[in-house]
């Protein structure tokens, strides 16, 4: 029986974060059942509400209305939206009242901003002793670089992953905005751990989160390796220290590639059969893993002579059926077309009142007795009435007054 009790039902999150490193963390909590209230100033909305992901389409849309940015709609599913001008004293006070009705409060503003407007941990803790507050910053809340600003690619660079990404004979490469979403995932984890702790002990706490450090933690073996060998790990392209073949090969067509990795002699034998060159498995240049690694360049050349004349997806299927790890190097259009992702319901369908139906990437897990909520990201200020009246207990008149004073958005 699927009773679909969402695991975080009854947990409320006050979300003062914006862009990606923060909003996606609270979206993960929302998809697990928490009530997430996204607080924005209506004059200082989440930048992603207007976003088109770089590089711009041609012709570039000149102006994206605040509910239509894909950078917003993809990382704010199943939340509620409150507009509140927290630069006004009344707005800040309401924000504080809301915050202490939340189990968790999160922000990714610059160090000190939340403290100044009474939303810092010290102030909130006095009003609600078991509150959990997480502040997510580029380099952390204290220290000589605490005020250094950053974005995803900068964190990827400072944290050490960009340095080892790319070809040895070329410049290092950052990844893209995914570093923000990674940081969100780590943030969601530590929030849930802190929440577990609170449920067991009644004790809340403040969490000071560094987005650069989170990158380094996902490459911890590099720090140990450097101390053990005295060598700084460098870029290796698609190559592996021990395995060959282990690379990305050109396929028929323009800019089509397939990735292939062979981990054992048995896999190599199977591989040589697929490409119709079983004699390679007996060739002393390629017979053992060590020999293949030594002669990797020659081997890659032989392989690419075969792959460049053939269709990518056909080859991938042949290799996979033969028990070899192979995959197309998919671009983003390919992702929507992937039959495996389709079969696993990896996408979620929502109806957006301004854009129409949207098919977006869903939650990155399956779980028994769980159907992910399928609610779109909220329109700007969509839940003002709900939050102000039902959670904060304001009267209709008081809400109208806030509207007149421009503390919350019109309409």
């Amino acid at each position: 029986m699927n009773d679909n009790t969402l695991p975080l039902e009854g947990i409320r999150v006050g979300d003062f974060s914006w862009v990606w490193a923060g909003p996606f963390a609270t979206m993960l909590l929302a998809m697990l059942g928490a009530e997430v209230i996204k607080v924005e100033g209506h004059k200082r909305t989440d930048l992603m509400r207007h976003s088109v992901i770089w590089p711009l389409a041609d012709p570039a849309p000149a102006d994206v209305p605040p509910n239509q940015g894909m950078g917003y709609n993809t990382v704010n599913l199943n939340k509620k939206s409150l507009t509140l001008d927290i630069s006004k004293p009344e707005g800040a006070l309401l924000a504080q009242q809301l915050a202490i009705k939340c189990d968790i409060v999160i922000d990714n503003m610059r160090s000190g901003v939340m403290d100044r407007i009474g939303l810092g941990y010290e102030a909130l803790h006095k009003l609600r002793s078991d509150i959990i507050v997480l502040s997510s910053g580029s380099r952390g809340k204290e220290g000589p670089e605490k005020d250094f600003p950053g974005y995803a690619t900068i964190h990827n660079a400072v944290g050490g992953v960009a340095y080892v990404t790319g070809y040895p004979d070329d410049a290092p490469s950052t990844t893209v905005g995914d570093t923000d979403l990674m940081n969100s995932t780590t943030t969601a984890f530590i929030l849930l751990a802190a929440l577990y702790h609170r449920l067991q002990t009644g004790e809340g706490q403040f969490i000071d989160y560094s987005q650069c450090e989170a990158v380094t933690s996902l490459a911890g073996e590099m720090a140990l390796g450097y101390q053990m060998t005295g060598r700084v790990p460098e870029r290796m392209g698609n190559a592996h220290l021990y395995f060959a073949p282990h690379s990305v090969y050109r396929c028929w067509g323009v800019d089509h590639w397939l990735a292939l990795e062979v981990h054992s002699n048995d896999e190599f034998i199977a591989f040589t059969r697929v490409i119709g060159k079983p004699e390679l498995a007996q060739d002393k240049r390629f017979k053992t893993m060590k020999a293949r690694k030594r002669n990797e360049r020659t081997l890659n050349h032989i392989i690419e002579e075969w792959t460049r004349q053939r269709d990518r997806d056909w080859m991938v299927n042949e290799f996979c059926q033969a028990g070899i790890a192979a995959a197309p190097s998919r671009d983003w259009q390919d992702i929507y077309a992937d039959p495996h992702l389709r079969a696993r319901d990896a996408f979620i369908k929502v109806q957006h009142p301004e854009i129409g139906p949207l098919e977006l990437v869903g939650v990155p897990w399956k779980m028994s007795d769980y159907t992910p909520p399928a609610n779109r990201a909220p329109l700007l200020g969509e839940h003002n009435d709900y939050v102000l009246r039902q959670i904060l207990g304001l009267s209709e008149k008081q809400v109208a007054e806030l509207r007149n004073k421009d503390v919350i958005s019109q309409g």
Partner: protein
Amino acid sequence: MAGATLSGIRVIEYTNMVAGPYCGKLLADLGADVIKVEPPEGDSARTVGPFPNDKPHHEKSALFLYNNTSKRGITLNLKTEEGKEIFTQLIQWADVLIDNFPPGHLESIGFSDEVIQKANPRLIYTSITPYGRTGPRAQVKGDELTLAHASGLGNLMPVRSADIRRAPVKPGGFQVAYQSAVNAAVVTMAALIGMGRTGKGRIIDVSMQEVIVGLLRPGIASSRYQRASWSRVPDRPPAMGRMKTNDGYLVLGAAEDNHFRNLREMMGNPPWMAGDQWLNMNYRSHHLMDIAPQMDAWMEKQNKKEVTEKLASKGVPLGPINSIKDIMENKQYTFRQYFTEVEHPVAGKYKYAGWPYQMTASPPRVSRPAPLLGEHNEEIVCKELNYSQKDYLRLKKSGTFGRIKR
């Protein structure tokens, strides 16, 4: 202070390499009681390295030592009946089971989902697999390289590579596995919290491909609905992106108008950046490439650390592309005491990467170094599962914990 964050949670992990072990480490460093079950020959990460002075040794592999801190370890030969019995008892002992072997592996040795759930109906069983447990590609092999490309991440890099004759490239290290581990930890924690209400166990299916696809969600939707298309994406406007310095590289993100104004001032207001139009983001989006050669030339004369301090303290977003050596010498990491010293009885004393979260009430810590192979066999069997010393010796003799030939 009321004890460690996750004290009281019992975890067994039947894991290998990175995705499963790191998920266990995340919980263990916060105080969960994590028992790692290894086959007699050990986790394959023990053979990967790097090793001190490049001498392979199964207790000295950096990859293993990092990903298995704060755990106890037991070796089990799951081909023996006694090994299976102990594994069953550990499933009954635990709140959480983490498994990152391919779909069907545990079933093939007698532990189907039904068997596991029957043994412990309250168990949270977290499975991490390359493509998930269902779907047409469930049985396909996948690892870092293939999954990075299958998920749409590899295709984006190297960024700003104008040369499409060169293959797209994976991120360095084990990014797919690490990120999958964190995702698995999120949903595992949520299930543990929800358990308080339902009392019912769950099976969690984390597909590593979907984890990475999930991190690219804004761009993926944009490619469909706004026709943006990325492949080895140009990273320059509106913020300039990667730039060369006299000693390496950095990433400049002077995206907003005030960032650019401060940058221009720090550069000494050169004539080729004069005019108010440069303080307009929209203008820069279209014209930044016009002055890229001059900006690159300026940057190539700078030292990455010095220019970062100079500009970032004025609020310009940028950061050096740090090697691990740079990071270990960085004063912010030092100030936050990010690296933590751990002494391992065989491998010795090293500084380990820590955690990005500092917690006022229940901070993470390494409570013990990674377990030696089979280090806690006796302790776990006798103390946790209440076998007598005599029974333990009998099991040992009959090969339940394996006979290790090294």
